[in-house]
């Protein structure tokens, strides 16, 4: 039953993703993208990452998609464009994408991921209690993972904040109308 949920989600994701890349109307594309994001957050939930699922919805659906829709509206004439939506390397792109798909398929198929009794997996299954108690909820454990100096991500985390800030400023500067 729960497994069926995953496959339904997967179907939604794939279908809406296909819509994203094929639909003529950009606005519809953006809506399909939002749907894809919802699907992906569903997968996160299914995996048990509740916090990240929430973040996914907030940032992707709430921020990025909205941003994209703003972008579409600012470049509105495009929506009325009756020209082709695809460029002239569609077939080549299909070829490249197919090649990547083939490679990925072969890689996944040849790896030992399919055997569920991986030593690490069994170890994690036998002794989850201690870990679970240490990180009682996902949010605090994620916070610890990010910020505890011994994990080594603290600097990167701080740096990302600066990056965000500069991206924000940069976006404003780039998009600003030239005074002249």
């Amino acid at each position, binding site marked *: 039953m729960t497994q069926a949920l995953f496959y339904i989600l997967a179907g939604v994701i794939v279908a809406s993703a296909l819509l994203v890349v094929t639909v003529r109307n950009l606005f519809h594309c953006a809506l399909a993208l939002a749907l894809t*994001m919802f699907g992906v957050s569903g997968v996160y939930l299914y*995996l048990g990452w509740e916090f990240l699922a929430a973040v996914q919805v907030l*940032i992707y659906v709430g921020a990025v998609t909205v941003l994209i829709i703003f972008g579409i509206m600012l470049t509105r004439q495009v929506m009325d464009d009756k020209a082709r939506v695809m460029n002239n390397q569609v077939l080549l792109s299909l070829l490249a994408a197919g090649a990547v798909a083939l490679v990925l398929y072969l890689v996944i198929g040849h790896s030992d991921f399919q055997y569920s009794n991986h030593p690490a997996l069994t170890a994690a299954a036998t002794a989850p209690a201690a*870990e679970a108690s240490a990180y009682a909820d996902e949010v605090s454990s994620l916070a610890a993972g*990010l910020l505890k100096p011994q994990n080594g991500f603290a600097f990167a985390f701080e740096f990302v904040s600066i990056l965000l800030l500069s991206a924000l400023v940069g976006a404003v500067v780039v998009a600003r109308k030239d005074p002249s």
Partner: protein
Amino acid sequence: MTEVPIVHYLYLAAVLFVIGIFGVLARKNAISVLMGIELMLNAVNINYLAFAKYWGGGNLTGPVFAVFVITIAAAEAAVALAIVISIYRQLKSANVDDAHNLRG
């Protein structure tokens, strides 16, 4: 609880990734290209989180990276859209093909 095998997550991510690639390569409109990139980033995140769940053993590196990816994706989207708008203003078009001043 009978789990969905990890390989299926990987296949899902792979399909999503490939669709994203197609979007990046084949769409004319710059915003569509951007959306393709978002799809690819999401595919990556699915992999991270699936591995973290199944093989992580309590190690939180996977979700931490997912957080970074989400954050940076947001920043990227903002900057990219700013560039698209700027280009649009210059060229009166949001088509990627029309910005080819670097031709040799």
